[in-house]
Protein backbone atom coordinates (compact mmCIF):
# COMPACT_ATOMS: atom_id res chain seq x y z
CA UNK A 1 0.00 0.00 0.00
CA UNK A 2 1.23 3.44 -0.82
CA UNK A 3 1.94 5.79 2.04
CA UNK A 4 -0.14 8.85 2.76
CA UNK A 5 0.67 12.02 0.86
CA UNK A 6 -0.03 15.66 1.63
CA UNK A 7 0.85 17.77 -1.38
CA UNK A 8 0.25 21.23 0.02
CA UNK A 9 2.35 22.45 2.93
CA UNK A 10 2.66 26.20 2.30
CA UNK A 11 6.14 27.67 2.30
CA UNK A 12 6.39 29.88 5.36
CA UNK A 13 9.12 32.51 5.66
CA UNK A 14 10.11 31.43 9.17
CA UNK A 15 12.09 28.24 9.11
CA UNK A 16 11.03 27.24 12.60
CA UNK A 17 7.30 27.20 11.90
CA UNK A 18 7.89 25.23 8.70
CA UNK A 19 9.85 22.67 10.71
CA UNK A 20 7.02 22.37 13.20
CA UNK A 21 4.51 21.89 10.40
CA UNK A 22 6.50 19.12 8.73
CA UNK A 23 7.19 17.43 12.07
CA UNK A 24 3.50 17.37 12.95
CA UNK A 25 2.65 15.98 9.50
CA UNK A 26 5.10 13.16 10.20
CA UNK A 27 3.52 12.63 13.59
CA UNK A 28 0.08 12.28 12.00
CA UNK A 29 1.34 9.59 9.63
CA UNK A 30 2.03 11.32 6.30
CA UNK A 31 5.01 9.70 4.61
CA UNK A 32 5.42 12.33 1.87
CA UNK A 33 4.83 16.09 1.98
CA UNK A 34 5.33 18.75 -0.68
CA UNK A 35 6.23 22.32 0.24
CA UNK A 36 4.20 24.71 -1.87
CA UNK A 37 5.58 27.93 -3.42
CA UNK A 38 2.92 30.25 -4.86
CA UNK A 39 3.54 32.73 -7.69
CA UNK A 40 0.78 35.28 -8.01
CA UNK A 41 0.93 37.70 -10.94
CA UNK A 42 -1.57 40.10 -9.47
CA UNK A 43 0.66 40.66 -6.47
CA UNK A 44 3.75 41.24 -8.65
CA UNK A 45 5.63 38.37 -7.10
CA UNK A 46 7.26 37.07 -10.21
CA UNK A 47 10.64 35.67 -9.37
CA UNK A 48 10.97 31.92 -9.08
CA UNK A 49 12.96 31.23 -5.95
CA UNK A 50 15.06 28.16 -5.41
CA UNK A 51 13.18 25.68 -3.21
CA UNK A 52 14.46 24.95 0.27
CA UNK A 53 16.23 21.61 0.46
CA UNK A 54 15.33 19.06 3.14
CA UNK A 55 18.89 19.01 4.49
CA UNK A 56 18.70 22.78 4.96
CA UNK A 57 15.54 22.39 7.00
CA UNK A 58 16.36 19.42 9.20
CA UNK A 59 19.56 17.88 10.48
CA UNK A 60 17.73 14.61 11.03
CA UNK A 61 14.41 14.10 9.28
CA UNK A 62 11.42 13.34 11.52
CA UNK A 63 10.23 9.75 11.53
CA UNK A 64 6.81 8.86 10.15
CA UNK A 65 4.36 7.51 12.70
CA UNK A 66 3.80 3.77 12.37
CA UNK A 67 6.73 3.26 10.01
CA UNK A 68 10.43 3.39 10.75
CA UNK A 69 11.22 5.56 7.77
CA UNK A 70 12.02 9.29 7.60
CA UNK A 71 9.53 11.62 5.94
CA UNK A 72 10.08 12.59 2.30
CA UNK A 73 10.01 16.30 1.47
CA UNK A 74 9.33 17.53 -2.06
CA UNK A 75 8.82 20.95 -3.61
CA UNK A 76 5.90 22.20 -5.63
CA UNK A 77 5.27 25.35 -7.63
CA UNK A 78 1.77 26.84 -7.94
CA UNK A 79 0.98 29.45 -10.58
CA UNK A 80 -2.05 31.65 -10.04
CA UNK A 81 -3.07 32.49 -13.61
CA UNK A 82 -5.66 35.00 -14.74
CA UNK A 83 -4.20 35.57 -18.23
CA UNK A 84 -2.87 33.02 -20.79
CA UNK A 85 0.50 34.80 -21.02
CA UNK A 86 1.24 33.91 -17.40
CA UNK A 87 1.77 30.27 -18.32
CA UNK A 88 4.90 31.03 -20.38
CA UNK A 89 7.07 30.49 -17.33
CA UNK A 90 6.35 26.76 -17.53
CA UNK A 91 7.71 26.57 -21.06
CA UNK A 92 10.79 28.69 -20.34
CA UNK A 93 13.51 26.40 -19.12
CA UNK A 94 14.92 28.86 -16.64
CA UNK A 95 17.48 27.86 -14.06
CA UNK A 96 15.38 27.70 -10.93
CA UNK A 97 12.30 26.04 -12.34
CA UNK A 98 13.93 22.66 -12.89
CA UNK A 99 14.39 22.18 -9.13
CA UNK A 100 10.67 21.74 -8.57
CA UNK A 101 9.11 18.28 -8.45
CA UNK A 102 5.46 19.19 -9.06
CA UNK A 103 3.81 21.97 -11.06
CA UNK A 104 0.29 23.17 -10.29
CA UNK A 105 -1.94 25.88 -11.75
CA UNK A 106 -4.77 27.81 -10.17
CA UNK A 107 -7.02 28.95 -13.05
CA UNK A 108 -9.14 32.04 -12.41
CA UNK A 109 -11.65 31.69 -15.25
CA UNK A 110 -13.28 29.03 -17.38
CA UNK A 111 -11.14 29.58 -20.45
CA UNK A 112 -7.93 29.12 -18.52
CA UNK A 113 -9.37 26.05 -16.80
CA UNK A 114 -9.87 24.53 -20.22
CA UNK A 115 -6.33 25.48 -21.31
CA UNK A 116 -4.87 24.03 -18.10
CA UNK A 117 -6.71 20.76 -18.57
CA UNK A 118 -5.89 20.30 -22.25
CA UNK A 119 -2.55 21.84 -23.23
CA UNK A 120 -0.50 22.99 -20.24
CA UNK A 121 2.27 20.73 -18.99
CA UNK A 122 1.21 20.53 -15.32
CA UNK A 123 0.42 17.83 -12.77
CA UNK A 124 -2.28 19.46 -10.66
CA UNK A 125 -5.18 21.83 -11.25
CA UNK A 126 -6.31 23.61 -8.07
CA UNK A 127 -10.00 24.19 -7.51
CA UNK A 128 -11.00 27.39 -5.75
CA UNK A 129 -12.66 26.66 -2.42
CA UNK A 130 -12.78 30.09 -0.76
CA UNK A 131 -15.45 31.65 -2.96
CA UNK A 132 -18.25 30.62 -5.27
CA UNK A 133 -16.87 28.88 -8.35
CA UNK A 134 -16.66 31.66 -11.00
CA UNK A 135 -17.21 29.28 -13.94
CA UNK A 136 -18.95 26.04 -14.81
CA UNK A 137 -16.75 22.97 -14.93
CA UNK A 138 -17.31 21.40 -18.32
CA UNK A 139 -17.21 17.71 -19.02
CA UNK A 140 -14.97 17.75 -22.18
CA UNK A 141 -12.08 19.54 -20.48
CA UNK A 142 -12.27 17.28 -17.43
CA UNK A 143 -12.32 14.17 -19.61
CA UNK A 144 -9.20 15.32 -21.46
CA UNK A 145 -7.48 16.02 -18.14
CA UNK A 146 -8.34 12.55 -16.86
CA UNK A 147 -6.91 10.99 -20.00
CA UNK A 148 -3.68 12.96 -19.65
CA UNK A 149 -3.30 11.97 -16.01
CA UNK A 150 -3.82 15.44 -14.54
CA UNK A 151 -5.35 15.56 -11.06
CA UNK A 152 -7.64 18.06 -9.37
CA UNK A 153 -6.77 19.38 -5.96
CA UNK A 154 -9.19 20.20 -3.15
CA UNK A 155 -7.98 22.02 -0.05
CA UNK A 156 -9.67 21.30 3.28
CA UNK A 157 -8.25 23.78 5.81
CA UNK A 158 -10.51 26.73 4.82
CA UNK A 159 -13.43 24.43 5.62
CA UNK A 160 -12.11 23.89 9.14
CA UNK A 161 -11.40 27.58 9.77
CA UNK A 162 -14.64 29.21 8.79
CA UNK A 163 -18.30 28.30 8.32
CA UNK A 164 -19.00 30.22 5.08
CA UNK A 165 -15.82 28.83 3.53
CA UNK A 166 -17.06 25.36 4.52
CA UNK A 167 -20.23 25.88 2.48
CA UNK A 168 -18.28 27.01 -0.58
CA UNK A 169 -15.84 24.13 -0.21
CA UNK A 170 -18.55 21.50 -0.04
CA UNK A 171 -20.67 22.97 -2.84
CA UNK A 172 -17.67 23.43 -5.18
CA UNK A 173 -16.44 19.93 -4.37
CA UNK A 174 -19.86 18.42 -5.07
CA UNK A 175 -20.16 20.25 -8.39
CA UNK A 176 -16.74 18.88 -9.38
CA UNK A 177 -17.72 15.35 -8.31
CA UNK A 178 -20.75 15.43 -10.58
CA UNK A 179 -18.42 15.83 -13.54
CA UNK A 180 -15.43 13.68 -12.66
CA UNK A 181 -17.34 11.00 -10.68
CA UNK A 182 -14.82 10.86 -7.86
CA UNK A 183 -11.79 10.03 -9.98
CA UNK A 184 -8.57 12.07 -10.21
CA UNK A 185 -9.06 13.97 -6.96
CA UNK A 186 -6.32 14.83 -4.51
CA UNK A 187 -7.17 16.11 -1.03
CA UNK A 188 -4.52 18.28 0.59
CA UNK A 189 -4.25 20.59 3.56
CA UNK A 190 -2.69 24.05 2.97
CA UNK A 191 -2.37 24.34 6.75
CA UNK A 192 -0.41 27.26 8.15
CA UNK A 193 -0.38 25.97 11.72
CA UNK A 194 0.28 22.46 13.04
CA UNK A 195 -3.10 22.38 14.77
CA UNK A 196 -4.91 22.79 11.45
CA UNK A 197 -3.51 19.56 10.05
CA UNK A 198 -5.68 16.46 10.27
CA UNK A 199 -4.78 12.80 10.21
CA UNK A 200 -4.98 10.91 6.90
CA UNK A 201 -7.94 8.76 7.96
CA UNK A 202 -9.86 11.85 9.03
CA UNK A 203 -9.13 13.51 5.69
CA UNK A 204 -10.28 10.41 3.81
CA UNK A 205 -13.48 10.59 5.78
CA UNK A 206 -13.85 14.28 4.92
CA UNK A 207 -13.93 13.08 1.33
CA UNK A 208 -17.21 11.42 2.24
CA UNK A 209 -18.63 14.89 2.93
CA UNK A 210 -17.32 16.08 -0.43
CA UNK A 211 -19.21 13.33 -2.26
CA UNK A 212 -16.43 10.79 -2.77
CA UNK A 213 -17.06 7.10 -2.30
CA UNK A 214 -15.12 5.23 0.36
CA UNK A 215 -12.47 3.75 -1.93
CA UNK A 216 -12.08 6.96 -3.93
CA UNK A 217 -11.65 8.98 -0.75
CA UNK A 218 -8.91 6.65 0.44
CA UNK A 219 -7.21 6.92 -2.93
CA UNK A 220 -7.43 10.72 -2.79
CA UNK A 221 -4.95 10.84 0.11
CA UNK A 222 -2.71 7.96 -0.87
CA UNK A 223 -2.47 6.50 -4.38
CA UNK A 224 -3.56 9.59 -6.31
CA UNK A 225 -0.89 11.66 -4.57
CA UNK A 226 1.69 9.08 -5.62
CA UNK A 227 0.42 9.22 -9.20
CA UNK A 228 0.96 13.00 -9.19
CA UNK A 229 4.55 12.54 -8.01
CA UNK A 230 5.24 10.00 -10.74
CA UNK A 231 3.65 12.27 -13.35
CA UNK A 232 5.96 15.06 -12.20
CA UNK A 233 8.98 12.79 -12.28
CA UNK A 234 8.18 11.62 -15.82
CA UNK A 235 8.66 15.21 -17.01
CA UNK A 236 12.42 14.90 -16.54
CA UNK A 237 12.58 11.72 -18.64
CA UNK A 238 12.52 11.01 -22.36
CA UNK A 239 9.04 9.74 -23.33
CA UNK A 240 8.55 8.76 -19.70
CA UNK A 241 10.83 5.75 -20.18
CA UNK A 242 14.50 6.71 -20.03
CA UNK A 243 16.01 8.72 -17.22
CA UNK A 244 19.60 9.88 -17.11
CA UNK A 245 21.53 10.98 -14.09
CA UNK A 246 25.17 11.80 -13.47
CA UNK A 247 27.19 9.07 -11.90
CA UNK A 248 29.73 10.11 -9.29
CA UNK A 249 33.18 9.26 -10.66
CA UNK A 250 35.69 7.18 -8.79
CA UNK A 251 39.34 8.38 -9.02
CA UNK A 252 40.75 5.30 -10.82
CA UNK A 253 38.17 5.62 -13.57
CA UNK A 254 39.25 9.21 -14.06
CA UNK A 255 42.20 8.33 -16.33
CA UNK A 256 42.29 10.11 -19.64
CA UNK A 257 42.65 6.84 -21.61
CA UNK A 258 39.31 5.25 -22.54
CA UNK A 259 38.49 1.72 -21.46
CA UNK A 260 39.05 0.16 -24.89
CA UNK A 261 42.62 1.47 -25.12
CA UNK A 262 43.40 0.17 -21.66
CA UNK A 263 42.52 -3.34 -22.73
CA UNK A 264 44.87 -3.12 -25.69
CA UNK A 265 47.72 -1.93 -23.53
CA UNK A 266 47.20 -4.83 -21.18
CA UNK A 267 47.45 -7.26 -24.08
Amino acid at each position, binding site marked *: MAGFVDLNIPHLPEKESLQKLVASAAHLGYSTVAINYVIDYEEKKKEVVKPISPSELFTSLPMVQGKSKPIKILSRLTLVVSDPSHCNILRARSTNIKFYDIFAVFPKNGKLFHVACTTLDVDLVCINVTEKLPFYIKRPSVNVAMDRGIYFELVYVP*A*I*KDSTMRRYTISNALSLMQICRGKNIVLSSAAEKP*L*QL*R*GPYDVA*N*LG*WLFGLSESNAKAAVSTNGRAVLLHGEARKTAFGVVYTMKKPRTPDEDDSTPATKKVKMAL
Partner: protein
Amino acid sequence: MVRFKNRYFLCEIISEDLHFQQSIDEWAVHNTVKNVVARMHGDFGLACCSIAFSVKYLNAYTGIVLLRCRKDFHRLLWSSLPFITHLESRNERYRCSFNTLHVGATMRTCQKFLIHHNRNQLLVLLRNCTSEDRQAIQKSVQSCKFVGEEQYNSEDEESKDEESDDSMK
Protein backbone atom coordinates in the same frame (compact mmCIF):
# COMPACT_ATOMS: atom_id res chain seq x y z
CA MET B 1 -31.81 -12.28 19.16
CA VAL B 2 -29.59 -9.60 17.67
CA ARG B 3 -27.50 -7.17 19.58
CA PHE B 4 -26.71 -3.52 18.94
CA LYS B 5 -23.51 -2.86 17.08
CA ASN B 6 -21.34 0.01 18.15
CA ARG B 7 -18.25 1.74 16.88
CA TYR B 8 -15.50 2.98 19.17
CA PHE B 9 -13.34 5.91 18.10
CA LEU B 10 -9.88 6.00 19.61
CA CYS B 11 -8.81 9.63 19.28
CA GLU B 12 -5.77 11.60 20.27
CA ILE B 13 -6.22 15.22 21.34
CA ILE B 14 -3.31 17.31 20.12
CA SER B 15 -2.76 20.58 21.92
CA GLU B 16 0.05 23.04 22.53
CA ASP B 17 -1.50 24.54 25.64
CA LEU B 18 0.23 23.53 28.87
CA HIS B 19 -2.76 24.10 31.16
CA PHE B 20 -4.77 21.82 28.95
CA GLN B 21 -3.96 18.63 30.83
CA GLN B 22 -5.30 19.62 34.22
CA SER B 23 -8.49 21.27 33.19
CA ILE B 24 -10.12 18.76 30.89
CA ASP B 25 -12.80 16.28 31.89
CA GLU B 26 -15.19 13.89 30.21
CA TRP B 27 -18.03 16.38 30.17
CA ALA B 28 -15.97 18.92 28.27
CA VAL B 29 -15.22 16.35 25.57
CA HIS B 30 -18.84 15.17 25.55
CA ASN B 31 -20.21 18.68 25.07
CA THR B 32 -17.63 19.66 22.48
CA VAL B 33 -18.34 16.64 20.29
CA LYS B 34 -22.09 17.12 20.56
CA ASN B 35 -21.78 20.81 19.67
CA VAL B 36 -19.66 20.10 16.62
CA VAL B 37 -22.09 17.42 15.39
CA ALA B 38 -24.93 19.91 15.79
CA ARG B 39 -22.96 22.51 13.86
CA MET B 40 -22.07 20.16 11.02
CA HIS B 41 -25.19 18.02 10.60
CA GLY B 42 -27.92 19.98 12.31
CA ASP B 43 -30.67 18.64 14.55
CA PHE B 44 -31.06 15.43 12.58
CA GLY B 45 -27.40 14.55 12.89
CA LEU B 46 -27.34 15.36 16.59
CA ALA B 47 -30.37 13.16 17.20
CA CYS B 48 -28.80 10.27 15.27
CA CYS B 49 -25.43 10.54 16.98
CA SER B 50 -26.73 10.93 20.51
CA ILE B 51 -28.17 7.40 20.55
CA ALA B 52 -25.80 5.52 22.85
CA PHE B 53 -23.14 8.22 22.51
CA SER B 54 -20.74 8.32 25.41
CA VAL B 55 -17.16 9.13 26.33
CA LYS B 56 -15.88 5.78 27.52
CA TYR B 57 -12.36 6.66 28.51
CA LEU B 58 -10.32 9.81 28.87
CA ASN B 59 -6.67 10.13 29.78
CA ALA B 60 -5.89 13.81 30.12
CA TYR B 61 -2.13 13.26 30.42
CA THR B 62 -1.69 11.42 27.14
CA GLY B 63 -4.74 13.04 25.53
CA ILE B 64 -6.38 9.77 24.56
CA VAL B 65 -10.17 9.64 24.25
CA LEU B 66 -12.45 6.70 23.50
CA LEU B 67 -15.88 7.61 22.11
CA ARG B 68 -18.76 5.28 21.47
CA CYS B 69 -21.65 5.61 19.03
CA ARG B 70 -23.98 3.35 17.05
CA LYS B 71 -22.59 1.70 13.94
CA ASP B 72 -25.31 3.07 11.64
CA PHE B 73 -24.39 6.67 12.35
CA HIS B 74 -20.66 6.49 12.96
CA ARG B 75 -19.96 8.18 9.64
CA LEU B 76 -21.86 11.25 10.78
CA LEU B 77 -19.79 11.46 13.95
CA TRP B 78 -16.52 10.74 12.20
CA SER B 79 -17.02 13.38 9.52
CA SER B 80 -17.59 16.06 12.16
CA LEU B 81 -14.57 15.19 14.33
CA PRO B 82 -12.08 17.04 12.03
CA PHE B 83 -13.99 20.28 12.54
CA ILE B 84 -13.19 20.48 16.25
CA THR B 85 -10.86 23.41 16.79
CA HIS B 86 -11.14 24.00 20.52
CA LEU B 87 -12.36 22.40 23.71
CA GLU B 88 -14.37 24.42 26.18
CA SER B 89 -14.20 23.67 29.86
CA ARG B 90 -14.85 25.95 32.84
CA ASN B 91 -15.52 28.89 30.52
CA GLU B 92 -12.06 28.67 29.01
CA ARG B 93 -11.14 27.65 25.50
CA TYR B 94 -8.23 25.39 24.72
CA ARG B 95 -7.14 25.16 21.11
CA CYS B 96 -6.68 21.57 20.05
CA SER B 97 -7.33 19.10 17.26
CA PHE B 98 -8.62 15.54 17.21
CA ASN B 99 -6.69 12.85 15.40
CA THR B 100 -8.46 9.52 14.94
CA LEU B 101 -6.05 6.67 15.61
CA HIS B 102 -8.39 3.71 15.27
CA VAL B 103 -12.05 2.89 14.75
CA GLY B 104 -12.95 -0.42 16.29
CA ALA B 105 -16.02 -2.53 16.84
CA THR B 106 -15.11 -3.46 20.40
CA MET B 107 -13.31 -1.72 23.22
CA ARG B 108 -10.95 -4.67 23.35
CA THR B 109 -9.52 -4.08 19.89
CA CYS B 110 -9.13 -0.39 20.69
CA GLN B 111 -7.19 -1.26 23.83
CA LYS B 112 -4.93 -3.61 21.90
CA PHE B 113 -4.28 -0.94 19.32
CA LEU B 114 -3.53 1.65 22.00
CA ILE B 115 -0.97 -0.59 23.70
CA HIS B 116 0.72 -1.18 20.36
CA HIS B 117 0.61 2.53 19.56
CA ASN B 118 2.07 3.55 22.92
CA ARG B 119 4.88 1.06 22.56
CA ASN B 120 5.81 2.65 19.23
CA GLN B 121 5.60 6.14 20.72
CA LEU B 122 7.94 5.11 23.50
CA LEU B 123 10.54 3.98 20.96
CA VAL B 124 10.35 7.33 19.19
CA LEU B 125 10.70 9.22 22.48
CA LEU B 126 13.62 7.04 23.56
CA ARG B 127 15.57 8.04 20.48
CA ASN B 128 15.84 11.67 21.49
CA CYS B 129 15.87 11.70 25.27
CA THR B 130 18.71 12.24 27.71
CA SER B 131 20.61 9.46 29.47
CA GLU B 132 18.99 10.16 32.85
CA ASP B 133 15.55 9.72 31.37
CA ARG B 134 16.69 6.56 29.68
CA GLN B 135 17.86 5.06 32.96
CA ALA B 136 14.63 6.01 34.68
CA ILE B 137 12.68 4.27 31.93
CA GLN B 138 14.87 1.18 32.14
CA LYS B 139 14.28 0.99 35.86
CA SER B 140 10.54 1.37 35.50
CA VAL B 141 10.37 -1.20 32.69
CA GLN B 142 12.37 -3.76 34.67
CA SER B 143 10.27 -3.30 37.77
CA CYS B 144 7.12 -3.44 35.66
CA LYS B 145 4.41 -5.81 36.73
CA PHE B 146 0.67 -5.68 36.55
CA VAL B 147 -0.78 -4.03 39.63
CA GLY B 148 -4.16 -2.52 40.36
CA GLU B 149 -5.46 0.59 38.78
CA GLU B 150 -4.57 3.03 41.58
CA GLN B 151 -1.14 1.83 42.60
CA TYR B 152 1.04 3.11 39.81
CA ASN B 153 2.93 6.38 40.02
CA SER B 154 4.74 8.35 37.38
CA GLU B 155 7.78 10.61 37.52
CA ASP B 156 8.61 11.78 34.05
CA GLU B 157 7.08 12.34 30.64
CA GLU B 158 8.05 9.05 29.07
CA SER B 159 6.61 6.76 31.69
CA LYS B 160 3.20 8.27 31.13
CA ASP B 161 2.88 6.25 27.98
CA GLU B 162 3.10 3.06 29.93
CA GLU B 163 0.75 4.42 32.48
CA SER B 164 -2.05 4.57 29.98
CA ASP B 165 -1.48 0.90 29.20
CA ASP B 166 -1.82 -0.02 32.81
CA SER B 167 -4.89 2.00 33.45
CA MET B 168 -6.70 0.47 30.53
CA LYS B 169 -6.17 -3.05 31.83
